[in-house]
């Protein structure tokens, strides 16, 4: 790519310098380090790789990380749509504050979120007390992972759905109403289909972030192997046991899955642009 780079005549200076800095920095900080995971995985040999990447403990960890991330992303699609709808369609006091608070999970360090959620959802916490009285303890259980990932993922859905809701033309809704549709029918048959691609993008973003999430999860999850141990934690455990090959193999699987999600996201983007056109 850098070699093939060819600029169309532009009178501005600095093409070589700026592109040079970009590619150098990208290679040093991101590309070369990331390639280490793949090179290391290959050099360990297929059988070593497979034994670590597909061990029963690793499979249980992937299942929890990706399963909880999918469930949390689905919850966020419902509530993210609700919050996005309210922010775009209604004017009420406190709207700006509500909008500002949505980005809290981006700004609050994950470890802080982790200990705060644990304090809330543990048996001694305000919410945990109610939940365990109802026979549904959350903290130190797989359900705790879902709670943490739901916290982390909300802004991804709200921020992707908002602009699309704002641009939705009222003419289509008017037409549906004229044709005798109820408000609910208009929502499910007209509005929902037009924001479906944005919702799918929000889901994928929240899912990708959740699957790799570590800081907010480890405090509230029980971290018991096979039960409540997420994949990123298993990587750290392997590293602490000096099992570099094991850690690398699991990291490799996680990277491949996140690249697949990234590809899917780009396809979604393509789909949205074609629909808009």
């Amino acid at each position, binding site marked *: 790519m850098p070699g093939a780079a060819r600029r169309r005549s532009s009178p501005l200076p600095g093409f070589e310098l*700026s592109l040079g800095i970009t590619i150098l920095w990208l290679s040093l900080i991101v590309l070369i380090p990331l390639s280490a995971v793949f090179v290391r995985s290959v050099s360990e040999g297929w059988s070593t790789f497979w034994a670590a990447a597909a061990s029963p403990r690793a499979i249980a960890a992937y299942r929890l990380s990706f399963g909880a991330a999918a469930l949390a992303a689905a919850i966020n699609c419902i509530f993210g749509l609700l919050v996005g709808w*309210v922010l775009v369609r209604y004017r009420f006091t406190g709207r700006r504050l509500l909008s500002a608070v949505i980005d809290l999970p981006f700004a609050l360090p994950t470890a802080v979120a982790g200990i705060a959620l644990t304090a809330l959802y543990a048996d001694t916490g*305000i919410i945990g007390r109610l939940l365990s009285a109802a026979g549904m303890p959350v903290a130190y259980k797989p359900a705790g992972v879902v709670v943490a990932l739901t916290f982390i993922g909300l802004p991804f859905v709200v921020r992707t759905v908002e602009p699309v809701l704002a641009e939705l033309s009222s003419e289509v809704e008017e037409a549906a109403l004229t044709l005798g549709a109820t408000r609910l029918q208009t929502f499910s048959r007209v509005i929902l289909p037009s924001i479906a691609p944005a919702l799918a993008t929000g889901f994928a973003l929240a899912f990708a972030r959740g699957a790799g999430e570590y800081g907010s999860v480890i405090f509230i999850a029980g971290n018991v192997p096979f039960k409540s141990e997420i994949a990123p934690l298993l990587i750290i455990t392997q590293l602490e046991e000096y099992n570099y090959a094991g850690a690398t193999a699991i990291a490799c699987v996680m990277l491949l899955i996140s690249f697949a999600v990234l590809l899917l996201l780009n396809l979604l983007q393509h789909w949205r642009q074609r629909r808009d056109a």
Partner: protein
Amino acid sequence: MTAASLREPPVAKALLIGAAIAYVGLMLILPLGTVLVEALRKGWDAWWAAVSEADARSSIRLTLIVAAISVPLNTVFGIAAAWAVSKFHFRGKTALIALIELPFSVSPVVSGLVFVLLFGAQGWFGPWLEAHDIRIIFALPGLVLATLFVTFPFVARQLIPLMTAQGSANEEAALTLGASGWQTFWRVTLPNIRFGLLYGVLLCNARAMGEFGAVSVVSGHIRGETNTMPLQVEALYNDYDFVAAFAVASLLTLLAIVTLALKSVLEWRHRRALAAAH
């Protein structure tokens, strides 16, 4: 057809707003409040003792140093990347943008692991580094590298759409009037992008100071030496010293609140200057 028939009945509207506020209150505000309540559970004196204790102070210093090194580096990179991508046409541009955003889809733990594979004792350069008595992993350079990786896309991602939307007309005019390339950048481009740049730096800094997973892998968790604030929170929490853990966490929460406030002010006051960035 009146506009009123396009709206939900007032009751439905009130219910929807109530539900949204209740959900955000339960999911986001309550955890935020919990940090502050827990931090002050034993009063201000206990809070002050916890945040002014030697290891806590050292973690604050380390967090500031790591951010002071990594944020400017990624800011310079972000400006360079945005200049190349937005002012010129070249093949592979879409791929380049995708690669710049790559760190967002990598698990923080993997972001730290990659540097252990390169510079750790069993890593590619491990033996060489050891022979020359250079420490990267379990030391400041490792913390900086991991932070650079996770905060890599923030400034670039903010500036690329903004500068693309602004085009090159202003710069071309300045050059025609005899300004040099650098003069054009400092006097024309930089003032045009200053709010977008500030926005990107703000988010980059919040992530740099709050990063946990990636630095956790490379830190070695030596108290008073390689623990950043989030790592110190974890260490105190695992000691069951909850008041101290939440006290240090409350400082990070303050950082988050300030970040959100500044971000909101930028969004309200300079919506148009940021317009293309969203």
